[in-house]
């Protein structure tokens, strides 16, 4: 019985995790792309001024990493609050579902977010490395 339920819930959880990873990928990649296009001229200027590729990437990706780090505890807190709210709403007159909190769950979430963010960072890094300095500097503001 427990195995059957666990198997079905496992499939559901797998899909949810995949979607969550995609969303993380979208959000992180999107914000990184936006700041990249916003600061393409600044970054190109820094490159021209003699900053190394790694240092330029750090300006962008460091901010990204910091944001991810800050978002993790906030996200975990919001997740727990959401779980609590949902289980409360599920309680009916005849039955109520107890709130089962397993520390493994947020840990897995953290890992998924970090993996997705790392994948995004690699993508962005390659874009920064291939930044067309001339075109970026030529555009007028």
């Amino acid at each position: 019985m427990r195995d059957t339920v666990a198997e079905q819930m496992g499939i559901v959880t797998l899909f949810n995790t995949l979607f969550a990873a995609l969303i993380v990928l979208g959000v992180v990649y999107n914000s990184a792309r936006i700041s990249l296009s916003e600061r393409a001229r600044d970054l190109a200027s820094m490159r021209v001024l003699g900053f190394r590729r790694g240092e330029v990437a750090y300006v962008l990706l460091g901010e990204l990493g910091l944001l991810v780090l800050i978002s993790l505890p906030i996200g975990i807190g919001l997740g727990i609050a959401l779980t609590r709210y949902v289980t409360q709403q599920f309680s009916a007159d005849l039955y109520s579902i107890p709130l089962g909190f397993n520390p493994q769950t947020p840990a897995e979430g953290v890992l998924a977010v970090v993996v997705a963010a790392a994948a995004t960072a690699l993508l962005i890094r390659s874009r920064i490395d291939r930044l067309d300095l001339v075109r970026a500097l030529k555009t007028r503001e």
Partner: protein
Amino acid sequence: MRNWLTGPRLLLALLVAAVALAVFVALREPAVNVELGRAEHGPLVVTIDDLGETRVTNLYVVSAPITGQLLRVPLKPGAQVVPRQTLLGRIQPVEPSPLDARAYAQATAEIRSLQAQLAASQSRVSEARAEQILAEREFSRASDLANRGFVSRANVDRARAARDRSRAAFAEANQSVAATSQGLQAARAALMVAGTKAKGAGAVDVTSPVPGFVLRVPQESERVVVAGTPLVEVGDPDRLEIVTDLLSADAVRVRPGAEVFIEDWGGDRPLKGRVRLVEPYGFTKISALGVEEQRVNVVIDFAEPREAWLRLGHGYRATVRIVVSAAPNVLKVPISALFRSGREWSVFVVDAGGRARSKQVKAGRMNDEEAEIVSGLAAGERVILHPSDKVDEGVRVRERD
């Protein structure tokens, strides 16, 4: 010194720390919530529990001594009975039964036959009287002549004998008339049927041979009863006992004199009792599931004064817990901590690090709640109650709130 503490390194370190923490938590087995009990010294009482019924120690069934018409029994259950004095019931003669056509014809023919006989015997009386008068006269004549010496004494004697015979014949004829007229009366009585108001004889008053109270009146209404019909059950509710039927295998373990706790009888506290008798005769009882069981009656006396169980009556239900063995101070654990592994009993104990450790133990006496531990555990050890399949050797456990 400050050179290596740069922004990128700090950020990288924080990221690595977060990932490491996440990996650690994700890979760690979560603690299993369990309920805990404790191995401790204390008294252990092993009982056999069953349902029992109270009954009056001596129950007397007063039954009809004769066949007859029972008048309505005036007593109700609970009425007090004084021996040989309180009237339990009165049995009258029954009404004569009706005559069918044949019996009626026979009876009337009998009457006519006896009437004819009566007439015949009355005629016999007249004949006997005539004979007697003649014999008297002959005798007086013969005696006169004999006084004068004309007839012999032998003749006189014969005349006297003839006179005596005729007297006797007359008396016999008279008696015969009386007998026949009585016979006629008897034949007329055969025509009596119900409702003729004739009174019979021999009504009997039924009384109780013992003092006590009426417990049950199985035959309350007036009716014709056959001798032996139960009329009233009399018993003394002050002298109650409890009878319970145990499985014979359980009854073997019960000794006369064993202590008994009487519970769920309706009072606010359990009563104490004592086994008086384990009957030597078992009987077959079919359980609710249709299983044939051999059961033995066990009789229990109250060990408390009558005031404690004043409201109990005959045939009331109670739960009896018969003490089979009692130990004042043994090492025991809750029985839900024990489980079988192979042929031995095992328990999970919680070690100092909060992890479950399986231990083989030797269990002794058990009741519904606790089991004696003969060896394998020390007093004060924490044991896991009804361990689930998540609990295994070395698993971290946490006490449920």
